[in-house]
């Protein structure tokens, strides 16, 4: 299979007046078409940094990233439009209605027209948000906001989705429900996805592969192929798979988290 996304020897350093921080070191990763990959790693190890580099938002110190064979540059080039990046919080614009929030990316990319409104309304309909299209973000629950943020990302029809802890703002119950919904949306739309998370169970339940990173500077410690014996896999069902515990323990040990 041809890799959609190819990361080669990626290293990233941050420079500030009083320090230099090495966030990512020599990272190599191939992501296949339609794959769901999770990245787990200790807090502050460089996960967001990796996503930002893929999205062309910062300049790597060295290394290259290819999407469909063409290189991603900084500042981001045409390739950017193929990437949908969902940030750590939903960042809905309070002053825009839900519909206008969803169309934001299209407006920026000058792709906004009658057809796209139709398409977006269909999507809102499908994911149960159509009746809220004229509401403002503060009138929505956390889970709904998260879905709106995802639809906003999907509206520009990216090839690859980058999700940065998409569920971290939600309470546990909502989190389970919303991750189920969002998983379904992503599979429906057939997107390649890279998700960053702190939550080991979440990473196993959603992904085809889990990438475990070391402490900063981020390097790949191990990659787990998640093979679960459940039919019609959904995140909730995955949690009941017999192999779930095995993966959980292995990744937990790998992360090597000490409470000091």
């Amino acid at each position, binding site marked *: 299979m041809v890799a959609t996304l190819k990361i080669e020897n990626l290293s990233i350093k941050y420079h500030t007046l009083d320090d230099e921080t090495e966030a990512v070191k020599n990272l190599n990763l191939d992501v296949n078409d339609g794959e769901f990959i999770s990245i787990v790693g200790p807090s502050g190890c460089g996960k967001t940094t990796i996503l*930002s580099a893929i999205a062309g938002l910062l300049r790597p110190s060295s290394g290259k990233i290819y999407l469909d064979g063409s290189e991603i540059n900084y500042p981001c080039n045409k390739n*950017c439009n193929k990437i*949908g990046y969902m940030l750590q919080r939903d*960042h809905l*614009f*309070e002053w825009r209605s839900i519909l206008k929030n969803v169309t934001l990316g299209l407006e*920026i990319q000058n792709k906004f027209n009658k057809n796209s409104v139709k398409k977006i309304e269909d999507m809102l309909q499908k994911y149960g948000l159509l009746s809220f299209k004229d509401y403002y973000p503060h009138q929505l629950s956390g889970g709904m906001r998260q879905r709106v943020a995802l639809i906003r990302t999907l509206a520009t029809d990216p090839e690859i989705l980058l999700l940065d802890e998409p569920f971290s703002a939600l309470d546990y119950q909502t989190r389970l429900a919303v991750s189920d919904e969002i998983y379904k949306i992503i599979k429906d739309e057939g997107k390649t996805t890279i998700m960053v998370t702190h939550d080991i169970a979440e990473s196993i339940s959603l992904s085809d592969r889990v990438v475990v990173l070391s402490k900063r500077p981020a390097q790949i410690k191990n990659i787990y192929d998640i093979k679960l014996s459940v039919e019609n896999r959904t995140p909730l069902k995955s949690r009941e798979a017999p192999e779930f515990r095995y993966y959980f323990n292995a990744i937990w040990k790998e992360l090597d988290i000490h409470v000091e």
Partner: protein
Amino acid sequence: MLNKNYSKEHEEYLKKLKRRKMAIITVQILILILFFVQWEIMANLKIVDPFLVSQPSRMVKFLIKLYNEGTLFRHIGVTCYETIIGFVLGTIIGTIIAILLWASDFISKVLDPYLVVLNALPKIALGPIIIFWVGNGQPAIIAIALMISLIVTIISVSSGFKEVDKDKIKLLQTFGASKLQILRYVVLPSSIPTMISALKINVGLSWVGVIVGEFLVAQEGLGFLIVFGGQVAQLDMVMLSIIILSVAAYLMYEIVAIFERKYLRWRG
């Protein structure tokens, strides 16, 4: 939510709030009335000298005289006009300069100390220079009002721009937004509250500028009436003008506040 059926307890609560609000307004009006009544009585009884502090009945007489001469609204109109032009221009020009500063971090850093100095300088001190440059008339008054509000606007709007959520900007960048698009889609809309609060401050500052300007050069307007009244020892004229000024300033502030409420609907 108006057509909802509330419980008795909630209705009681609403009623209590309403009663309290009425009480506050009533006391506020009473204070005003009492103030003018005691003023009138004290002046009548010669406890205070009406020549020095005037007296409500004399002010009313003077008001009617101005009205009959047909100059009352002319004076009020001129001053309000200058003030509105002053604060609207101050806000618009200040915001435009703030946008330019936002566009270039370098220029912004370079100009920073100069802005601080200009901000600290009492702008009134520039009055005579402005009159010298702009001429002895209305443009000079507006220019003084503008000077006073301009620098504050630049500084407060600029700092509002800087406080815009970096992640919202990052979000736009993930869609490949240009600098202009970032300005249009996030920086300006999320700074509207700052701009409105600048507008509110500018209303007050603009009154100061206009009155000072009128002290210096005017042939008409409320500021002119105040100075002129002082020169000819007509305290009725001075006091009346001050009271009209207070009412006008209050009304203008309220109009801006209504504007604010209207535009901040989405904040909920």
